[in-house]
């Protein structure tokens, strides 16, 4: 059963997110991998197995959108759910336009997250 769980990768420089989100996703029935930066994710062997990427927008070094562009260049068509602590409503449409599945503003509810993941997995 566990092996069949889809892999959701999390990239966020905020430690509390990296701590809390995997537990919630596990409760929702996902397998997870958390990375503190985009570079760390790109260097891992999880790219191919990742069914959905939960990606923080603002990070030091490579940002969320940077990683999105990098993955596009690598033709890794991973559905991405952006998350951000910036309460800027103008960001969301831009992110969706760029091909994101969803853009969630922190703090977000488990149902909103689940809905986004469900949408993402449907794309697979």
């Amino acid at each position, binding site marked *: 059963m566990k092996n069949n769980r889809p892999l959701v990768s999390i990239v966020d*420089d*905020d430690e*509390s*997110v990296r*701590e*809390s*989100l995997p*537990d*919630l996703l596990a*409760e*929702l029935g996902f397998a997870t991998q958390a990375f503190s930066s985009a570079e760390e994710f790109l260097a891992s062997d999880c790219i191919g197995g990742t069914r959905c990427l939960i990606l923080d927008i*603002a*990070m*030091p*070094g490579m*940002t969320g959108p940077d990683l999105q562009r990098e993955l596009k260049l690598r033709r890794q068509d991973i559905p991405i759910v952006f*998350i951000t*602590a*910036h*309460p*800027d409503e103008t960001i969301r449409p831009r992110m969706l336009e760029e091909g994101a599945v969803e853009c969630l*503003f*922190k*703090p*977000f*509810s*488990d149902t909103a997250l689940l809905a986004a993941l469900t949408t993402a997995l449907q794309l697979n």
Partner: protein
Amino acid sequence: MTGDPGLMAQPRRRSNVEEQLENPAGEIKRLRRCINDLVSFLALPAVWTGGEPSQVVHTLLDTLLRMLHLDLVYLRLKGPIGDAPIEMIRVGESQTLMSRPKEICELLHRWLEDDPQKSLPVVRKTIGGEDMSIVPLPLGLQGGIGMIIAGSRRADFPEQTERLLLSVAANQAAIGLQEARLLSEQKRVTSELDRRVSQRTKELVDANQELQVQVGLLQHVPVAAWTLGPDGTPDFVNHNWLEYTGQALDYVQSSPEAWMTAVHPEDRERASRSYWDGIRSGQGFTMEARFRRVLDGTYRWHLNRAVALRDREGKILRFVGTSTDIEDVKQSEEKLRRAEEKTRLIIDTALDAVITIDAKGQITSWNKQAEISFGWSHSEAIGQHMSDLIIPERLRKAHEQGLRHFLATGDGPILRRRIEITAVRRSGSEFPVELEVSPMMLGQDWVFSAFIRDITDSKQAEEKLRESELKLRQMTETIPEMLWSATPAGAFDYCNARVLHYTGFSAEEIMGNGWRQFLHPEDVDHTSREWMSCVTTGAPYRVEVRIYNAADCAYRWCVTSALPLLDQKGRILKWHGTVVDMHDWKQAQEELRNTQAELAHMTRVTTLGELTASIAHEVNQPLSGIVTNASTCLRMLNADPPNVEGARETARRTIRDGNRASDVITRLRALFDRKSFTIEPVDLNDAVREVIALSLSRLQRDRVILRPELAGSLPLVTGDRVQLQQVILNLLQNASDAMSGIDDRPRYLLIRTEVEETDHVRLTVQDSGVGFDPQVAERLFKAFYTTKGDGMGIGLSVSRSIIETHRGRLWAKLNDGPGATFSFSIPRGPAGQTPDAPNPEQVMRNR
């Protein structure tokens, strides 16, 4: 020469005639004897040869007397022209005659004087009471030598033979005398020659000795001495001269002008002229010339004198001379001359008329200025009575009385001090003078020197000064400022009417120390202290003080300042001061300060407003954790079976994130809410870390790569933590903004803290952004100057005022590479230790 008849008397003999008459045989005998006598007479010259004339005469007379048995023979010889004739007489044995030879001489003399050319024949004369036959026999042609007179008592005298004998004897005598005379003359000449030769010899010996002495003298006299030949060539030069000039005798003698090489080149021509003039004229010379002293190579003045030495005929033998070093004399002469010249010049160029008079009141000296002042020339004035010349008629009597009084009593009330008096010019016009008369004893007499200054101009100048003082006074009274002055000791001695009007006090009330009355009571002590300190040190005086204003009936803030007026030696002569009402200005300044403070506050709010998104981000991060953990927790508890352990773990994380959110809120509230500011020790590193924490999300959003380089151990600074953080935040934001358009290079932002050598702590924020125009480097810190499209331009202005309040400084410079660096530096250690430093708390109090 009159012979002594007594000594020459001969015994009387029988005459030849008697013997002839007695005896014819005797005639023969007589003739024979006559011939013998004749032979004897003829032999006489041989006897006489080489003899003196006197000897000839004596022999002749004796022979005649004896041979012819004469009673009397008299000889008279003519002496040299003009001399009395020489007479001689011999008498026979007659007692009568023997006693009276002198009488006979005179008788015959007189007889001969009647006719000096007496010649034969015989005359009978009574001589000495006896009748005598007298025969005159001339000697020489016409008696040119003299006359012999033979006398006999015999009436028949002379007989024929006697006549012959007499004649021959006379001839022989003439010849003998002639010869004797010649001989005698020869002897005289010879002896004269001998005398002269010996005298000359002696003279030459003496002269030679003299010369020896002279040469020795010349050689050793302590002056340079020399002799010159008649042609001017030196033939002797003594050691002194040679030693002085360093020339050798051979050289000096080599040519007449060789010695001239020792003479100063400038003097040569003149010296040569005097020299040759003196030689050629034979007058010798006296000339002054500078000779080189070989000892030290200096030229010194010498007096050279030469006199001619001449022989008996006046022919020049040589010149003798000396050279005397007169440099010292010359110099002292020159000094004296200069001193006299100087004195004369001083007196002549004196601005005062200088006149001296003698005890009679007559002018003895009269300088140039006296000529100018009074119009009388020097030659006109000398010898005149001073009172007649320069004293107005009405004052003359008083002057002369004063002079007499002084001479009589030594008492002169106007002497030795300056008095102002009226004098009169040649033209008759009178003018004011300042006069000082000093009496001096010159020898036995009083002389008076008078210094007289025409003070017409200074009188006018005095008048002008009075006028200009009046003008100045008018100006100080009309100038729209409050002016005052004080003595060097600090006592008020003047203030203009405006001070009185402003304060409502009277001049009398505020003079001296009275001015303290118009000060605010709280200001009296420190103002008095400050004033006395300045009076003591001479430092400029400036105090802000509240002064009573009569118009407002209130104290108003004024600035009172004063500067000392110094004399040439730096001593304070006077204090001059002003009072300026600053009250309105001070209030405006206060208002400005308040406005600035409000502005700073507004900036902070604005800055934080810009940070709203970042703040939300800071809060949202922990909130996100909270929500997620809470959701997980619920799901774990709702599971079957419930995952209690997982729920507990997530709940624990929820609490932790809640605390993190709370921390963020607390920090934000500090920035927004704090009203009063506290001065406290601040760790600048901590302050930086907090600011970084607040700005991080924004910096990340702006894709800025932050590189903190915080010093390992940083001394604490003292100040307002939040204000300093506001500055740091502002610098970080500016740096971030400056890089917002940069895409071709990393957006590095360096923030560094470090210790400076001068006990300061420095914070540096370096970006790699667009930098700024170096032309506007200082304007960056002006309020409302901005390079940003959306900035207000007050951030840096406020930042700088905050840093300066902390006694630090804030500056900007361009990097070597891209971007700019902003730094501030503030002193370490507790602020407020230095009393005169502005107290940040005071400045900020009004927020």
